[in-house]
């Protein structure tokens, strides 16, 4: 079953922060975050394993709440280059490599 992402879209001004959420009804083993710009391939951002660890990639970080089966992606001090559609891909145990993606969150960062 696909994870649910929210919000569907967000518009930011440069320097503002945003949070994107990804929720699953299944017990997750890992959550993968990707960013896709229009007409391009999805680009890997980070993987989070169950255990609630937090990771960072430049000023983009994420957390994984195992109890809630939810992951959040944090865009801090957003830059124009952060524009794109963000997807979370979830993975359950014994199905490694079989990513179930959400429908995406479109992020637009304006000057």
């Amino acid at each position, binding site marked *: 079953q*696909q994870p649910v992402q929210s919000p569907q879209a967000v518009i930011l001004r440069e320097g503002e922060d945003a949070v994107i959420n990804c929720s699953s009804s299944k017990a997750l*083993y*890992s959550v*993968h975050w*990707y960013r896709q710009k229009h007409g*391009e*391939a*999805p*680009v*890997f951002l980070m*993987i989070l*394993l169950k255990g609630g660890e937090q990771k960072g990639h430049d000023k983009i970080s994420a957390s994984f709440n195992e109890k809630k089966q939810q992951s959040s992606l944090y865009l801090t001090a957003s830059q124009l280059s952060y524009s794109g559609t963000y*997807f979370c*891909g979830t*993975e359950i145990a014994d*199905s*490694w*490599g*079989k*990513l*179930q*993606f*959400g*429908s*995406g969150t479109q992020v637009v960062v304006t000057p």
Partner: protein
Amino acid sequence: DAGVTQSPTHLIKTRGQQVTLRCSPKSGHDTVSWYQQALGQGPQFIFQYYEEEERQRGNFPDRFSGHQFPNYSSELNVNALLLGDSALYLCASSIPTGGQPYEQYFGPGTRLTVT
């Protein structure tokens, strides 16, 4: 170092026809996964190949089949095309790391249009 490559870039087919899409994984990668991405949607997992065998499969009909060659490249075949098969088909390659989740590198995709 070449990344994941896919061919062709674009393809137009007629309903009922068959199509073959190709993927060459990133150097050193031995696992290939295929995804279908409809407009405005997230990628949907079709299947994954490792050691020339289908290891995982998503919820797609048997019209979708694949193959992996000894050099790790892969093909996706779709028979009896339907209008609903129109989508961007993405290939992703990876190196499984002993039971741990691993990063998948995506290719640019093949845009298939069925008329």
